[in-house]
Protein backbone atom coordinates (compact mmCIF):
# COMPACT_ATOMS: atom_id res chain seq x y z
CA UNK A 1 0.00 0.00 0.00
CA UNK A 2 1.25 3.45 -0.86
CA UNK A 3 0.70 6.23 1.67
CA UNK A 4 -1.44 9.26 0.86
CA UNK A 5 1.66 11.42 0.77
CA UNK A 6 3.47 9.02 -1.58
CA UNK A 7 0.48 8.91 -3.92
CA UNK A 8 0.19 12.70 -3.92
CA UNK A 9 3.86 13.08 -4.86
CA UNK A 10 3.75 10.34 -7.50
CA UNK A 11 0.60 11.82 -9.06
CA UNK A 12 2.37 15.17 -9.31
CA UNK A 13 5.10 13.45 -11.39
CA UNK A 14 2.54 11.60 -13.52
CA UNK A 15 0.92 14.94 -14.40
CA UNK A 16 4.20 16.12 -15.94
CA UNK A 17 4.58 13.26 -18.47
CA UNK A 18 2.45 12.04 -21.38
CA UNK A 19 2.22 8.40 -20.18
CA UNK A 20 1.88 7.12 -16.60
CA UNK A 21 4.76 4.66 -16.88
CA UNK A 22 7.17 7.49 -17.65
CA UNK A 23 6.95 8.51 -13.99
CA UNK A 24 8.34 5.13 -12.88
CA UNK A 25 11.81 6.34 -11.92
CA UNK A 26 10.43 9.32 -10.01
CA UNK A 27 7.94 7.02 -8.26
CA UNK A 28 10.73 4.65 -7.20
CA UNK A 29 12.72 7.61 -5.87
CA UNK A 30 9.73 8.92 -3.92
CA UNK A 31 8.97 5.59 -2.26
CA UNK A 32 12.62 4.89 -1.52
CA UNK A 33 12.91 8.33 0.04
CA UNK A 34 10.08 7.42 2.45
CA UNK A 35 11.01 3.80 3.15
CA UNK A 36 14.77 3.59 2.62
CA UNK A 37 14.53 0.80 0.05
CA UNK A 38 12.13 -0.86 -2.40
CA UNK A 39 10.66 -4.10 -1.07
CA UNK A 40 8.68 -6.51 -3.27
CA UNK A 41 5.49 -5.15 -1.68
CA UNK A 42 6.48 -1.55 -2.44
CA UNK A 43 7.37 -2.52 -6.00
CA UNK A 44 3.99 -4.16 -6.56
CA UNK A 45 2.13 -1.18 -5.12
CA UNK A 46 3.98 1.31 -7.33
CA UNK A 47 3.53 -0.88 -10.43
CA UNK A 48 -0.21 -1.15 -9.82
CA UNK A 49 -0.48 2.61 -9.40
CA UNK A 50 1.40 3.23 -12.67
CA UNK A 51 -0.52 0.59 -14.59
CA UNK A 52 2.48 -1.60 -15.38
CA UNK A 53 3.54 -5.08 -14.34
CA UNK A 54 5.75 -5.54 -11.29
CA UNK A 55 8.26 -7.38 -13.54
CA UNK A 56 8.54 -4.43 -15.89
CA UNK A 57 9.03 -2.02 -13.01
CA UNK A 58 11.61 -4.35 -11.46
CA UNK A 59 13.57 -4.30 -14.73
CA UNK A 60 13.78 -0.52 -14.28
CA UNK A 61 14.46 -0.63 -10.53
CA UNK A 62 17.34 -3.10 -10.86
CA UNK A 63 18.92 -1.25 -13.79
CA UNK A 64 19.90 1.82 -11.79
CA UNK A 65 22.67 1.85 -9.22
CA UNK A 66 20.84 3.80 -6.54
CA UNK A 67 17.50 2.07 -6.25
CA UNK A 68 17.96 -0.39 -3.39
CA UNK A 69 16.09 -3.68 -3.68
CA UNK A 70 17.51 -4.86 -0.35
CA UNK A 71 17.31 -3.14 3.05
CA UNK A 72 20.11 -0.67 3.72
CA UNK A 73 21.45 1.01 6.83
CA UNK A 74 20.54 4.47 8.13
CA UNK A 75 23.55 6.01 6.40
CA UNK A 76 24.87 5.07 2.96
CA UNK A 77 28.58 5.43 2.29
CA UNK A 78 29.41 5.65 -1.41
CA UNK A 79 33.15 5.37 -1.96
CA UNK A 80 34.36 6.39 -5.40
CA UNK A 81 36.36 3.54 -6.96
CA UNK A 82 36.97 5.14 -10.36
CA UNK A 83 40.23 6.03 -12.01
CA UNK A 84 41.32 9.31 -10.42
CA UNK A 85 40.49 7.97 -6.97
CA UNK A 86 42.37 4.75 -7.84
CA UNK A 87 45.49 6.75 -8.66
CA UNK A 88 45.10 8.82 -5.48
CA UNK A 89 44.65 5.78 -3.25
CA UNK A 90 40.99 4.90 -2.69
CA UNK A 91 42.06 1.31 -1.96
CA UNK A 92 43.76 2.48 1.21
CA UNK A 93 40.62 4.37 2.24
CA UNK A 94 38.58 1.22 1.59
CA UNK A 95 40.93 -0.85 3.72
CA UNK A 96 40.62 1.69 6.54
CA UNK A 97 36.82 1.73 6.25
CA UNK A 98 36.76 -2.05 6.47
CA UNK A 99 38.93 -1.94 9.59
CA UNK A 100 36.71 0.69 11.23
CA UNK A 101 33.31 -0.75 10.34
CA UNK A 102 34.08 -4.45 9.83
CA UNK A 103 32.05 -4.55 6.62
CA UNK A 104 32.92 -4.94 2.95
CA UNK A 105 31.32 -3.39 -0.13
CA UNK A 106 27.66 -4.38 -0.31
CA UNK A 107 27.34 -4.99 3.44
CA UNK A 108 25.56 -3.25 6.31
CA UNK A 109 26.81 -2.97 9.89
CA UNK A 110 24.86 -5.18 12.37
CA UNK A 111 23.51 -2.05 14.11
CA UNK A 112 22.17 -0.76 10.74
CA UNK A 113 24.25 2.39 11.10
CA UNK A 114 26.12 2.15 7.78
CA UNK A 115 25.84 0.46 4.38
CA UNK A 116 29.07 0.59 2.36
CA UNK A 117 28.92 0.67 -1.45
CA UNK A 118 31.42 1.28 -4.22
CA UNK A 119 30.41 4.02 -6.61
CA UNK A 120 31.60 5.21 -10.02
CA UNK A 121 33.19 8.63 -10.42
CA UNK A 122 31.64 11.31 -8.20
CA UNK A 123 32.94 14.19 -10.32
CA UNK A 124 35.40 15.64 -7.80
CA UNK A 125 38.49 14.15 -9.42
CA UNK A 126 40.69 17.14 -8.58
CA UNK A 127 40.07 16.37 -4.89
CA UNK A 128 40.47 12.58 -4.96
CA UNK A 129 39.95 10.34 -3.07
CA UNK A 130 36.28 11.16 -2.57
CA UNK A 131 33.23 9.63 -0.89
CA UNK A 132 29.66 10.59 -0.22
CA UNK A 133 27.63 9.84 2.89
CA UNK A 134 23.92 10.41 2.26
CA UNK A 135 23.79 13.95 0.78
CA UNK A 136 27.30 15.03 1.75
CA UNK A 137 30.49 14.84 -0.32
CA UNK A 138 33.91 14.55 1.36
CA UNK A 139 37.04 15.34 -0.64
CA UNK A 140 40.81 14.88 -0.26
CA UNK A 141 40.21 11.95 2.09
CA UNK A 142 42.81 10.64 4.49
CA UNK A 143 42.54 7.87 7.08
CA UNK A 144 42.64 10.48 9.86
CA UNK A 145 39.80 12.53 8.35
CA UNK A 146 37.72 9.41 7.83
CA UNK A 147 37.41 8.68 11.55
CA UNK A 148 36.17 12.22 12.24
CA UNK A 149 33.72 12.14 9.33
CA UNK A 150 32.08 8.89 10.44
CA UNK A 151 31.40 10.33 13.92
CA UNK A 152 28.91 12.75 12.35
CA UNK A 153 26.56 9.94 11.36
CA UNK A 154 24.55 8.13 14.03
Amino acid at each position, binding site marked *: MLSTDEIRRIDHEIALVPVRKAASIEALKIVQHHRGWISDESLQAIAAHLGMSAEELDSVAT*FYNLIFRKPVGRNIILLCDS*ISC*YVMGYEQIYAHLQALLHIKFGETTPDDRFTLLPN*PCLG*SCDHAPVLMINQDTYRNLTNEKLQEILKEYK
Partner: protein
Amino acid sequence: MERPLTQHINFNRSSLNLKDYRSVGGYQAVEKALTTMAPQDITKMVQEADLKGRGGAGFSTGTKWSFVPMNTVGQTKYLIANADEMEPGTFKDRMLLEGNPHQLIEGMIVAAYAIQANISYVFLRWAYKKAAWLIKHAIDEAYAAGYLGKNILGSGYDLEMHLHTGIGRYMCGEETALLNALEGKRATPRTKPPFPQVSGLFGKPTIVNNVETLCNIPHIVNHGADWFKDLSPGSDAGTKIYGISGRVNKPGLWELPMGTTIRELLEEHAGGMKKGVSFRAVLPGGASTDFLVEEHLDVKMDYKSISAAGSRLGTGTMIVLDDQTCPVGFIHNLEHFFAQESCGWCTPCREGLPWTEKILLSIENGEGRMEDLELLEMHTKHLGPGNTFCALAPGAMEPLQSGLKYFRADFEKHIKEKKCPWR
Protein backbone atom coordinates in the same frame (compact mmCIF):
# COMPACT_ATOMS: atom_id res chain seq x y z
CA MET B 1 42.67 36.25 -22.71
CA GLU B 2 38.88 35.92 -22.74
CA ARG B 3 37.20 33.30 -20.60
CA PRO B 4 33.51 33.70 -21.43
CA LEU B 5 32.26 30.58 -19.64
CA THR B 6 34.06 31.06 -16.34
CA GLN B 7 34.66 34.82 -16.15
CA HIS B 8 32.01 35.27 -13.46
CA ILE B 9 32.61 32.03 -11.58
CA ASN B 10 34.30 32.52 -8.26
CA PHE B 11 34.06 29.77 -5.68
CA ASN B 12 35.19 32.06 -2.90
CA ARG B 13 31.75 33.61 -2.98
CA SER B 14 28.39 32.02 -3.57
CA SER B 15 27.03 31.08 -6.97
CA LEU B 16 25.50 33.81 -9.15
CA ASN B 17 21.80 34.39 -8.51
CA LEU B 18 19.52 36.06 -11.06
CA LYS B 19 20.36 39.59 -9.90
CA ASP B 20 24.14 38.94 -10.02
CA TYR B 21 23.83 37.29 -13.40
CA ARG B 22 21.81 40.15 -14.88
CA SER B 23 24.26 42.71 -13.49
CA VAL B 24 27.01 41.16 -15.64
CA GLY B 25 24.92 41.11 -18.80
CA GLY B 26 22.97 37.93 -18.15
CA TYR B 27 19.86 37.18 -20.22
CA GLN B 28 20.82 39.74 -22.89
CA ALA B 29 21.19 36.86 -25.34
CA VAL B 30 17.64 35.71 -24.59
CA GLU B 31 16.37 39.22 -25.23
CA LYS B 32 18.34 39.57 -28.44
CA ALA B 33 17.41 36.13 -29.74
CA LEU B 34 13.72 36.13 -28.88
CA THR B 35 12.95 39.69 -29.87
CA THR B 36 15.26 40.32 -32.86
CA MET B 37 16.29 36.97 -34.39
CA ALA B 38 14.49 34.26 -36.34
CA PRO B 39 15.07 30.73 -34.96
CA GLN B 40 16.89 29.60 -38.11
CA ASP B 41 19.26 32.59 -37.90
CA ILE B 42 20.44 31.41 -34.49
CA THR B 43 21.08 27.90 -35.78
CA LYS B 44 23.00 29.39 -38.71
CA MET B 45 25.06 31.58 -36.39
CA VAL B 46 25.97 28.62 -34.15
CA GLN B 47 26.87 26.63 -37.25
CA GLU B 48 29.08 29.47 -38.53
CA ALA B 49 30.73 29.79 -35.13
CA ASP B 50 31.80 26.15 -35.57
CA LEU B 51 30.81 25.22 -32.01
CA LYS B 52 31.37 21.49 -31.55
CA GLY B 53 29.73 19.38 -28.85
CA ARG B 54 31.74 19.47 -25.62
CA GLY B 55 30.34 16.21 -24.23
CA GLY B 56 32.77 13.95 -26.04
CA ALA B 57 31.65 13.30 -29.60
CA GLY B 58 32.55 16.73 -30.99
CA PHE B 59 29.72 17.00 -33.53
CA SER B 60 28.80 20.45 -34.90
CA THR B 61 26.08 21.85 -32.63
CA GLY B 62 24.45 24.07 -35.25
CA THR B 63 24.34 21.20 -37.73
CA LYS B 64 22.71 18.98 -35.12
CA TRP B 65 20.02 21.62 -34.56
CA SER B 66 19.48 22.02 -38.30
CA PHE B 67 18.16 18.43 -38.51
CA VAL B 68 15.14 19.34 -36.38
CA PRO B 69 12.01 19.75 -38.53
CA MET B 70 10.91 23.41 -38.54
CA ASN B 71 7.65 25.06 -39.69
CA THR B 72 5.88 22.64 -37.40
CA VAL B 73 3.43 24.87 -35.58
CA GLY B 74 1.87 23.14 -32.61
CA GLN B 75 4.19 20.10 -32.61
CA THR B 76 5.82 19.17 -29.31
CA LYS B 77 9.62 19.33 -29.40
CA TYR B 78 12.15 18.97 -26.62
CA LEU B 79 15.50 20.46 -25.65
CA ILE B 80 17.55 18.58 -23.08
CA ALA B 81 20.72 19.61 -21.26
CA ASN B 82 22.85 16.54 -20.67
CA ALA B 83 24.22 17.18 -17.18
CA ASP B 84 24.72 13.49 -16.40
CA GLU B 85 28.50 13.92 -16.20
CA MET B 86 29.79 10.45 -15.29
CA GLU B 87 32.83 9.81 -17.47
CA PRO B 88 35.48 8.78 -14.93
CA GLY B 89 37.96 11.58 -14.41
CA THR B 90 35.55 14.24 -15.69
CA PHE B 91 34.36 17.07 -13.47
CA LYS B 92 34.03 20.12 -15.72
CA ASP B 93 30.25 20.45 -16.01
CA ARG B 94 29.97 20.39 -12.25
CA MET B 95 31.87 23.68 -12.12
CA LEU B 96 29.55 25.30 -14.67
CA LEU B 97 26.43 23.99 -12.92
CA GLU B 98 27.50 25.06 -9.46
CA GLY B 99 29.26 28.26 -10.45
CA ASN B 100 26.75 29.88 -12.79
CA PRO B 101 23.47 27.97 -13.22
CA HIS B 102 21.73 30.86 -15.03
CA GLN B 103 24.32 30.71 -17.82
CA LEU B 104 23.13 27.17 -18.58
CA ILE B 105 19.47 28.14 -18.34
CA GLU B 106 20.03 31.09 -20.68
CA GLY B 107 21.81 28.83 -23.18
CA MET B 108 18.94 26.37 -22.98
CA ILE B 109 16.31 29.04 -23.61
CA VAL B 110 18.13 30.28 -26.71
CA ALA B 111 18.75 26.73 -27.97
CA ALA B 112 15.12 25.75 -27.36
CA TYR B 113 13.95 28.87 -29.21
CA ALA B 114 16.25 28.04 -32.15
CA ILE B 115 14.59 24.65 -32.60
CA GLN B 116 11.19 25.94 -31.42
CA ALA B 117 10.94 23.48 -28.54
CA ASN B 118 8.43 24.28 -25.82
CA ILE B 119 9.57 21.80 -23.18
CA SER B 120 13.08 21.48 -21.79
CA TYR B 121 14.80 19.30 -19.22
CA VAL B 122 18.02 19.46 -17.28
CA PHE B 123 19.05 15.79 -16.92
CA LEU B 124 21.29 16.01 -13.88
CA ARG B 125 23.64 13.53 -12.26
CA TRP B 126 22.18 12.45 -8.89
CA ALA B 127 25.50 12.94 -7.10
CA TYR B 128 25.50 16.67 -7.85
CA LYS B 129 23.37 17.61 -4.85
CA LYS B 130 24.53 21.20 -4.62
CA ALA B 131 24.01 21.71 -8.36
CA ALA B 132 20.50 20.24 -8.08
CA TRP B 133 19.55 22.77 -5.44
CA LEU B 134 21.09 25.67 -7.37
CA ILE B 135 19.51 24.72 -10.71
CA LYS B 136 16.10 24.25 -9.12
CA HIS B 137 16.36 27.65 -7.48
CA ALA B 138 17.64 29.28 -10.71
CA ILE B 139 14.76 27.79 -12.74
CA ASP B 140 12.30 29.24 -10.20
CA GLU B 141 13.99 32.65 -10.46
CA ALA B 142 13.88 32.51 -14.27
CA TYR B 143 10.14 31.72 -14.21
CA ALA B 144 9.49 34.57 -11.77
CA ALA B 145 11.42 37.00 -13.99
CA GLY B 146 9.51 35.93 -17.10
CA TYR B 147 12.41 34.21 -18.87
CA LEU B 148 10.51 30.92 -18.69
CA GLY B 149 6.82 30.18 -19.01
CA LYS B 150 4.26 31.70 -21.37
CA ASN B 151 5.00 34.51 -23.83
CA ILE B 152 8.61 35.09 -22.78
CA LEU B 153 9.50 38.83 -22.91
CA GLY B 154 6.38 39.44 -24.95
CA SER B 155 7.80 37.43 -27.87
CA GLY B 156 4.90 34.99 -28.03
CA TYR B 157 7.34 32.13 -27.39
CA ASP B 158 6.57 29.66 -24.54
CA LEU B 159 9.05 27.39 -22.76
CA GLU B 160 8.71 25.10 -19.76
CA MET B 161 11.81 23.81 -17.97
CA HIS B 162 12.10 20.86 -15.58
CA LEU B 163 14.93 19.40 -13.54
CA HIS B 164 15.30 15.60 -13.68
CA THR B 165 17.85 13.94 -11.42
CA GLY B 166 19.04 10.50 -12.47
CA ILE B 167 19.61 7.50 -10.24
CA GLY B 168 23.02 6.49 -11.43
CA ARG B 169 24.04 4.74 -14.60
CA TYR B 170 26.83 5.75 -16.98
CA MET B 171 24.68 4.76 -19.97
CA CYS B 172 22.40 7.76 -19.28
CA GLY B 173 25.09 9.98 -20.79
CA GLU B 174 24.49 8.38 -24.22
CA GLU B 175 21.77 10.55 -25.70
CA THR B 176 19.31 7.89 -26.81
CA ALA B 177 19.74 5.98 -23.52
CA LEU B 178 19.13 9.27 -21.71
CA LEU B 179 15.83 9.58 -23.56
CA ASN B 180 14.81 6.10 -22.40
CA ALA B 181 15.71 7.06 -18.82
CA LEU B 182 13.56 10.20 -19.10
CA GLU B 183 10.70 8.00 -20.32
CA GLY B 184 11.05 5.92 -17.15
CA LYS B 185 12.66 2.93 -18.86
CA ARG B 186 15.96 1.08 -18.62
CA ALA B 187 18.66 3.33 -20.07
CA THR B 188 19.56 1.19 -23.06
CA PRO B 189 20.53 2.89 -26.32
CA ARG B 190 18.12 3.14 -29.27
CA THR B 191 18.66 2.24 -32.89
CA LYS B 192 19.69 5.18 -35.09
CA PRO B 193 18.09 6.17 -37.43
CA PRO B 194 15.68 7.61 -36.60
CA PHE B 195 17.87 10.20 -34.94
CA PRO B 196 16.53 11.99 -31.84
CA GLN B 197 16.45 15.26 -33.80
CA VAL B 198 13.51 13.76 -35.69
CA SER B 199 12.15 11.18 -33.25
CA GLY B 200 13.44 11.53 -29.71
CA LEU B 201 11.72 11.88 -26.35
CA PHE B 202 8.25 10.31 -26.51
CA GLY B 203 8.79 10.07 -30.28
CA LYS B 204 9.06 13.86 -30.72
CA PRO B 205 11.94 15.87 -32.22
CA THR B 206 14.56 16.31 -29.50
CA ILE B 207 17.96 17.93 -29.12
CA VAL B 208 20.31 16.74 -26.40
CA ASN B 209 23.33 18.98 -25.77
CA ASN B 210 26.08 18.87 -23.18
CA VAL B 211 26.17 21.53 -20.43
CA GLU B 212 29.41 23.16 -21.62
CA THR B 213 28.08 23.28 -25.19
CA LEU B 214 24.90 25.06 -24.08
CA CYS B 215 26.79 27.51 -21.86
CA ASN B 216 28.61 28.77 -24.99
CA ILE B 217 25.36 29.71 -26.75
CA PRO B 218 24.57 33.04 -25.01
CA HIS B 219 28.10 34.28 -25.71
CA ILE B 220 27.91 33.36 -29.40
CA VAL B 221 24.56 35.14 -29.73
CA ASN B 222 25.87 38.24 -27.93
CA HIS B 223 29.22 38.53 -29.70
CA GLY B 224 28.85 36.70 -33.01
CA ALA B 225 30.39 33.78 -34.84
CA ASP B 226 33.67 35.51 -35.75
CA TRP B 227 34.33 36.54 -32.16
CA PHE B 228 33.85 32.91 -31.11
CA LYS B 229 36.22 31.61 -33.76
CA ASP B 230 38.84 34.20 -32.80
CA LEU B 231 38.89 32.95 -29.19
CA SER B 232 41.15 30.15 -30.36
CA PRO B 233 44.31 30.53 -32.44
CA GLY B 234 43.96 26.95 -33.70
CA SER B 235 41.69 25.05 -36.04
CA ASP B 236 38.84 24.58 -33.54
CA ALA B 237 36.74 27.49 -32.35
CA GLY B 238 36.12 28.81 -28.85
CA THR B 239 37.53 28.05 -25.45
CA LYS B 240 37.55 24.69 -23.70
CA ILE B 241 37.30 23.80 -20.07
CA TYR B 242 40.30 21.58 -19.55
CA GLY B 243 40.96 19.61 -16.40
CA ILE B 244 43.68 17.45 -14.89
CA SER B 245 43.52 14.88 -12.11
CA GLY B 246 46.12 12.44 -10.82
CA ARG B 247 49.46 13.00 -9.06
CA VAL B 248 50.09 16.56 -10.18
CA ASN B 249 50.75 19.53 -7.89
CA LYS B 250 47.58 21.46 -8.64
CA PRO B 251 44.81 19.31 -10.07
CA GLY B 252 41.93 21.44 -11.32
CA LEU B 253 40.02 23.03 -14.18
CA TRP B 254 40.97 25.91 -16.49
CA GLU B 255 39.12 27.60 -19.31
CA LEU B 256 41.67 28.17 -22.08
CA PRO B 257 41.70 28.66 -25.85
CA MET B 258 40.84 25.50 -27.75
CA GLY B 259 44.15 23.97 -28.84
CA THR B 260 46.21 24.60 -25.69
CA THR B 261 49.00 22.00 -25.56
CA ILE B 262 49.10 19.12 -23.11
CA ARG B 263 52.48 20.39 -21.90
CA GLU B 264 51.14 23.85 -21.06
CA LEU B 265 48.22 22.33 -19.17
CA LEU B 266 50.38 19.89 -17.28
CA GLU B 267 53.34 22.11 -16.48
CA GLU B 268 51.95 25.65 -16.22
CA HIS B 269 48.40 25.12 -15.03
CA ALA B 270 48.65 21.88 -13.06
CA GLY B 271 52.09 22.81 -11.70
CA GLY B 272 53.83 19.68 -12.98
CA MET B 273 54.09 16.26 -11.37
CA LYS B 274 54.20 15.89 -7.59
CA LYS B 275 57.64 15.50 -6.03
CA GLY B 276 58.99 11.98 -6.36
CA VAL B 277 56.76 10.87 -9.23
CA SER B 278 57.23 11.25 -12.94
CA PHE B 279 54.89 11.41 -15.90
CA ARG B 280 54.22 8.28 -17.91
CA ALA B 281 51.04 8.87 -19.87
CA VAL B 282 47.75 10.68 -19.98
CA LEU B 283 44.18 9.89 -20.96
CA PRO B 284 43.45 13.22 -22.65
CA GLY B 285 39.66 13.27 -22.57
CA GLY B 286 38.32 10.94 -19.89
CA ALA B 287 38.35 7.19 -19.29
CA SER B 288 37.28 6.22 -22.80
CA THR B 289 40.17 7.81 -24.71
CA ASP B 290 43.50 6.35 -25.87
CA PHE B 291 46.65 6.98 -23.83
CA LEU B 292 49.09 9.59 -25.06
CA VAL B 293 52.71 9.53 -23.83
CA GLU B 294 55.76 11.79 -23.41
CA GLU B 295 56.29 12.24 -27.16
CA HIS B 296 52.79 13.75 -27.41
CA LEU B 297 53.21 16.46 -24.79
CA ASP B 298 53.34 19.22 -27.39
CA VAL B 299 50.16 18.06 -29.08
CA LYS B 300 47.38 20.64 -29.10
CA MET B 301 44.22 19.71 -27.24
CA ASP B 302 41.79 20.19 -30.11
CA TYR B 303 39.69 17.68 -32.03
CA LYS B 304 41.96 17.38 -35.05
CA SER B 305 45.37 17.38 -33.35
CA ILE B 306 44.41 14.86 -30.66
CA SER B 307 42.91 12.56 -33.32
CA ALA B 308 46.09 12.80 -35.40
CA ALA B 309 48.08 11.75 -32.31
CA GLY B 310 45.88 8.65 -31.96
CA SER B 311 43.38 9.63 -29.29
CA ARG B 312 40.27 11.77 -28.81
CA LEU B 313 39.63 15.14 -27.20
CA GLY B 314 36.62 13.56 -25.46
CA THR B 315 35.62 15.75 -22.53
CA GLY B 316 39.02 17.50 -22.38
CA THR B 317 39.55 16.45 -18.77
CA MET B 318 42.76 14.46 -18.46
CA ILE B 319 43.84 11.74 -16.10
CA VAL B 320 47.58 11.42 -15.58
CA LEU B 321 49.29 8.05 -15.15
CA ASP B 322 52.52 8.37 -13.17
CA ASP B 323 55.45 5.99 -12.72
CA GLN B 324 54.37 4.96 -9.18
CA THR B 325 51.03 3.65 -10.45
CA CYS B 326 50.77 0.25 -12.12
CA PRO B 327 49.50 0.64 -15.70
CA VAL B 328 47.89 -2.82 -15.60
CA GLY B 329 46.03 -1.96 -12.40
CA PHE B 330 45.09 1.40 -13.93
CA ILE B 331 43.61 -0.23 -17.03
CA HIS B 332 41.92 -2.92 -14.93
CA ASN B 333 40.21 -0.18 -12.95
CA LEU B 334 38.90 1.36 -16.18
CA GLU B 335 37.62 -1.94 -17.57
CA HIS B 336 35.99 -2.79 -14.24
CA PHE B 337 34.02 0.43 -14.59
CA PHE B 338 33.01 -0.23 -18.19
CA ALA B 339 32.06 -3.87 -17.50
CA GLN B 340 29.89 -2.77 -14.59
CA GLU B 341 28.24 0.04 -16.52
CA SER B 342 27.55 -1.94 -19.72
CA CYS B 343 23.78 -1.95 -20.08
CA GLY B 344 23.77 -5.55 -21.31
CA TRP B 345 21.79 -4.76 -24.43
CA CYS B 346 24.27 -6.14 -26.97
CA THR B 347 26.28 -9.33 -26.59
CA PRO B 348 29.84 -8.23 -27.42
CA CYS B 349 29.76 -5.52 -24.76
CA ARG B 350 27.86 -7.53 -22.12
CA GLU B 351 30.12 -10.59 -22.44
CA GLY B 352 33.35 -9.06 -23.71
CA LEU B 353 33.90 -6.36 -21.12
CA PRO B 354 33.70 -8.67 -18.07
CA TRP B 355 36.05 -11.02 -19.90
CA THR B 356 38.69 -8.31 -20.40
CA GLU B 357 38.23 -7.25 -16.79
CA LYS B 358 38.88 -10.79 -15.53
CA ILE B 359 41.95 -11.24 -17.73
CA LEU B 360 43.39 -7.93 -16.55
CA LEU B 361 42.75 -8.84 -12.91
CA SER B 362 44.48 -12.18 -13.30
CA ILE B 363 47.51 -10.50 -14.89
CA GLU B 364 47.56 -7.87 -12.14
CA ASN B 365 47.43 -10.67 -9.53
CA GLY B 366 50.36 -12.52 -11.14
CA GLU B 367 48.23 -15.28 -12.63
CA GLY B 368 48.40 -14.18 -16.25
CA ARG B 369 49.70 -16.09 -19.27
CA MET B 370 51.41 -14.65 -22.35
CA GLU B 371 48.51 -15.79 -24.52
CA ASP B 372 46.22 -13.55 -22.44
CA LEU B 373 47.77 -10.57 -24.21
CA GLU B 374 46.54 -11.95 -27.53
CA LEU B 375 43.10 -12.47 -26.02
CA LEU B 376 43.07 -8.84 -24.93
CA GLU B 377 44.18 -7.74 -28.42
CA MET B 378 41.35 -9.81 -29.86
CA HIS B 379 38.83 -8.04 -27.65
CA THR B 380 40.03 -4.62 -28.76
CA LYS B 381 39.00 -5.68 -32.30
CA HIS B 382 35.78 -7.52 -31.43
CA LEU B 383 34.50 -4.73 -29.21
CA GLY B 384 35.74 -2.01 -31.54
CA PRO B 385 33.72 0.45 -33.64
CA GLY B 386 31.00 -1.15 -35.75
CA ASN B 387 30.65 -4.33 -33.70
CA THR B 388 28.52 -3.02 -30.85
CA PHE B 389 25.22 -1.20 -30.49
CA CYS B 390 26.63 2.02 -29.06
CA ALA B 391 29.97 3.70 -28.31
CA LEU B 392 30.46 2.34 -24.78
CA ALA B 393 32.52 -0.76 -25.63
CA PRO B 394 34.59 0.90 -28.39
CA GLY B 395 35.36 3.67 -25.89
CA ALA B 396 36.33 1.09 -23.29
CA MET B 397 38.76 -0.48 -25.76
CA GLU B 398 40.62 2.77 -26.41
CA PRO B 399 42.73 2.82 -23.23
CA LEU B 400 43.19 -0.96 -23.50
CA GLN B 401 44.49 -0.99 -27.07
CA SER B 402 46.86 1.94 -26.50
CA GLY B 403 47.85 0.53 -23.10
CA LEU B 404 48.88 -2.75 -24.73
CA LYS B 405 50.95 -0.74 -27.18
CA TYR B 406 52.71 1.60 -24.76
CA PHE B 407 52.99 -0.64 -21.67
CA ARG B 408 53.63 -4.02 -23.30
CA ALA B 409 56.80 -4.51 -21.23
CA ASP B 410 54.86 -3.90 -18.00
CA PHE B 411 52.22 -6.46 -18.94
CA GLU B 412 54.95 -9.01 -19.75
CA LYS B 413 56.78 -8.28 -16.52
CA HIS B 414 53.62 -9.07 -14.50
CA ILE B 415 53.31 -12.39 -16.32
CA LYS B 416 56.99 -13.38 -16.11
CA GLU B 417 57.46 -12.38 -12.47
CA LYS B 418 54.01 -13.71 -11.50
CA LYS B 419 53.29 -10.56 -9.52
CA CYS B 420 52.60 -6.87 -9.83
CA PRO B 421 55.95 -5.04 -9.64
CA TRP B 422 54.19 -2.09 -7.99
CA ARG B 423 52.67 -4.00 -5.07
